Structure formats: C-alpha cells, structure tokens
C-alpha cells in the first residue's frame, strides 16, 4: 500500500513532465532532448524564488510557467523552425532535431553550472508528514501530486474541448491534412512546443519541492519522460498518464525492495517489455 501510494504520487508528477514532452513531440514533431534541462531550470527558479524571495513555490508557478512559455517559443521560432523548413523528410527532421536539442541540452547544463555551480539544490517546503491510510507521506509530495492532477486535467480539458486544442490535435494526427482544412500548422507547432516547455518547467518546480536537483540531472528526467511517452504512445494523453503511474510505482517498488540505485534499471526493464511486446504503446494500434 505504501509503495502503491508513493508510486502514484511520484507518477502524477512524472505524468505532467511527460505531457509536456508529448506536446512537443506529438504536435510539433520535435524530439526535444533538452526537455530535462527545462525541468531543472524550472526547479532552480522555484528554489531561487523560495530561498531569496521567500516566495511559495506554488505561487511561483504563476511566474515560472509564462517565462518558460516565452523562452520555449523563442527557442522554437529561432532555432528549430529553420530545421523544420530545411528538413526533406520526417526522418531527416528527427536526426536534426535530436542533434540540435542535444546541443542545447549541453549548452544549458554548461550555462547552469556556470551560473549556479555544480552543487545540489534542495529546500524544505511543507516537509511535515501527512497521515493517510495508516502510513505517513510528505506533504510536499501530496501537494505536488494534486497540482499535477489539476494542471494535467486542465490541459486535457483544453485540448479536448477548445478550438485551439482541436487544432493542435489535428496537427498531431497529420500536419499536411491539418493545413488543408485551414489550420496554421506553423503557429500550432510553435504554440505546442512553447506550451510543452511551460508544462515541463511547471513539473520541474513541483519536483524541486521534494527532490534534490543539480545542474546535470536533467538528462535523467528526459530519459524517464521519453520512456513514459513510448510506453503510453506518442500523442496519447491517457496512455501517458497510465504509463507515468506504472513507472512511478515500478521505481518506488524497486527502490524500496531491491536497491535505490536501480531506479533507471527498473525503467529500462519496463522500456524493454514495451519494445518487445507493445512497441506502439499501451493503447496504441500496431503500425505497418
């Protein structure tokens, strides 16, 4: 029970992070490997606002999310759009975007190490225990989970019922057809990329409430988000959430029962199973 609930709490935050990346990959078609660095940047911002300005991390989201939105929009507009224009095929764009975002990822880590030093960052926010179902859980984890659910839910409603959300989903299905029915694909892609970055930075701020971060930890989160997306299926919100919860529970179980140093190995085991048996994702149909 303890493992299930801790895993669920962790999985909720993972789901939010993976949703951000899924928007970027599913709609804008950019495999953004610098996603984890955006997360760490969000976490650093929350840390900085809390320690220097005594600003509650939850309130800090109001600042962090729009800033991340603008930064990601600029990154897409000036660095990635030229690649999209240049690419002859989806495969060529994939290789280019992987290499370019690797470059950004290393450059961000370099800049963050330079600006904040190579040390670890954490702060105590709502570190008191909360009694639930006979065990105690850290309040900050519960708050992070609730916020992740609220933000993720809002995002899902917006994507499902709003006009712009419909546009984004159309681009996710097929960019060429979407532009035929009057969707501005370029704007929709930029919006999805920026929104994905904002969601990821929000996830980073939530993670920083209970996780110790350092400048180079981003790639680990990128890895986990990628595994979740593949497990859940690209562009599939429901699959992403289920996969994130599965990963959260599997990691917690391995950390508690076997060894805390094996969390990535646990994620890999899941990844391997998905690749072998359901390469199109949990709810995906097999592609030709």
């Amino acid at each position, binding site marked *: 029970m303890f493992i299930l609930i801790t895993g669920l709490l962790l999985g909720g935050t993972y789901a939010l992070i993976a949703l951000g990346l899924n928007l970027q990959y599913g709609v804008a078609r950019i495999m953004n490997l610098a996603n984890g660095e955006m997360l760490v940047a969000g976490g650093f911002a929350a840390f900085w606002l809390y320690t220097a300005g005594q600003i509650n991390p939850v309130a800090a989201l109001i600042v962090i999310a729009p800033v991340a939105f603008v930064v990601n929009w600029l990154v897409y507009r000036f660095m990635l759009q030229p690649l999209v224009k240049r690419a002859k095929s989806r495969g060529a764009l994939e290789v280019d975007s992987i290499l370019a975002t690797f*470059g950004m990822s290393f450059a961000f880590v*370099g800049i963050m190490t330079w600006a904040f030093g190579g040390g670890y960052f954490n702060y105590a926010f709502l570190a008191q225990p909360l009694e639930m179902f006979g065990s105690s859980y850290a309040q900050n984890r519960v708050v992070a989970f609730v916020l992740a659910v609220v933000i993720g839910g809002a995002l899902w409603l917006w994507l499902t019922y709003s006009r712009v959300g419909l546009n984004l989903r159309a681009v996710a299905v097929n960019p060429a057809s979407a532009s035929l029915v009057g969707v501005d694909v370029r704007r929709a892609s930029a919006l999805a990329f920026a929104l994905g970055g904002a969601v990821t930075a929000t996830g980073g701020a939530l993670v920083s409430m209970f996780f110790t971060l350092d400048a180079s930890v981003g790639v680990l989160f990128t*890895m986990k988000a990628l595994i979740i997306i593949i497990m859940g299926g690209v562009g599939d919100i429901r699959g992403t959430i289920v996969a994130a919860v599965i990963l959260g529970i599997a990691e917690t179980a391995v950390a508690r029962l076997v060894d805390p*140093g094996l969390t*990535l190995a646990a994620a890999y085991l899941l990844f391997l199973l998905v690749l072998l048996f359901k390469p199109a994702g949990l709810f995906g149909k097999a592609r030709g």
Partner: protein
Amino acid sequence: MSGTDWRNLAISAALLGLAALLPVYGSPYWLTMGTTMAMFVVLATSWALFSGPTHYISLATAAFFGIGTFVTGLGFQSLPFWVLPPLAAIIGAVLAALVGLVTLRLSGVYFVIFTLGLAEMVRQVVTWVQNQTGHRGMYVLTSITEREIYWMLVGLGALVFLAGWLIGRSRLGFALRIIGNDETVAKHAGIDTALAKVALFMVPGAVAAATGAILAPRYIYIEPATAFAPLLSFQVVIMALLGGTGRLWGPIAGVIPFSLLWEAITRQAPNQTLLLLGIAFLVIVYLLPGGFVGLWDRFRRRFGGRS
C-alpha cells in the same frame, strides 16, 4: 582493384606507418595525446561505419567501452592480456546484437533513446552487483606501457579501416546505403533490413569493447562511475559528425582538431567543456551538416575538380 585503390592503399599504409612511429619521434606528451586520439579515431570510425549509412545515432559507445574495461579488470590476473581484447570484442558484439534485436526493428527514435540511457543503466546494474559482492573498484596493475597501448590501438584502428573498406565493397554495405536512403525501397528490394542493421551494429559494439579492454591498464583504477561515463558517447558522436560520415577517413578529420580543442579547453576552463560540447553540436547542425568531408566535397566541386 583499380589504380585508385592501389594509390589509396599506398597512402593509407604510409600514414599508418607514420602514426605507428609516433612513440619513436614524439615526446611523452604527444604520446599521451596520440593515445587519446587513437582511441577516438578507433571509436569514431567504427561508430560512423554503422551510423553513417543508416543515420541511426548510437549513444551506446560508453556502455560497450565500460564493459570492455571491466573484462580486463576482471580477467587480467587469470588470463594472458592478448586474450582480453578479443574476448571483450565478442562480448561487445553479442550485447550489441541483443540491443539491436530489441530496437532496430523499430524506428530510429527508439534506438536513440534506448542507447542514450544504456551506459547509465549498465552502470547502475554493475554498481549494484559490486555492492552485493562487497567489491567497490578494481586495480588494474599490469606491466603494459603507454607505448604498447598506443600500438595496440593503432593496430585496432588499421583493422577497423580494413573492415570499413571491405564492408563498403560488400553486399552488406550496399544494402545499408539503400536502407539509409529509403528503408521502404530497401524492404521492397528484398533486403532483410532489421538483420542488416543488427549485423552492422555489432561492429561498433565489438570495437568499442575491445578499445575499453586495451585502455583499461591506462586507468589503473576502474570504478563504474568513470568506466561508464556517458560523456564518451557524445564525444564520439561529435567527432565523427564534425569530420563527416560520408567517407571512411572523415572521422579522423574530426578527431584531430576536436581533441586538441578539447584538451585546450579542459586546461584553460575545465567547467566549460559541456558548453563546448553543446556549441559543437549546434555548429554541426546549423553550419556543417556534412562535416568537414561535406565541406571538402563542395570545395572540390566548385573549383573544377572531378566529382
């Protein structure tokens, strides 16, 4: 073999001889640099053999390399040293085949993601096993000198070039060039694309593991965190792409300048190496898509040379 082949062979042999004589005429400093460069030439050239024609970006180098160092670390006391690199190569090839069988049936993204975390995953497992058995790191104390390591690497490099040349002429090499251009066409032409890719992916796996086995005595003390450092994979990718994967000699053209630059940056500003790596990636994507080889070809075409 045609006249051009003989000419290329003669040039290669002369350059190889020049490289092999470095310990004779070079200072100890250049021997150290030479060993590092030889290591990257071997790794980047074998990387380009697979990733060049297929456009699949492999980040598994560090994982295979680390496994190679552990083969030496575990085996050097009970086995003669000359057995270890071939043994590591076999283990590396088998692992590469397993990774390839899982991921190479699917699209390239799965492969990149899987190899991205592979070194870290193997490191976690090795650390866990060591914790269970009570060992931490390992000392590799041998009588092998830097000079011998260098010669072994040059020899391995010659083998890699020979293999690359042979693959380029073989049916497998032809099949891979078709796959790289259009996988659907390749399938319709009757090529077993997954099998061809797996077969070729075993080459860099084996070479990287053998390189790790050869270099293990240089590190003296081996522990998982350094043996499986993921940075190595990225350095190899950068150097190969900077040089260009279109030609067999391309990666060398990237290894030499980048190693010198890297060395200079590590000495001047050790904290900025990651920034350098990032900028190098961006430069390749935005300014040098074909690497130095692409630049050279464009230059020759413009100034009336043969195409």
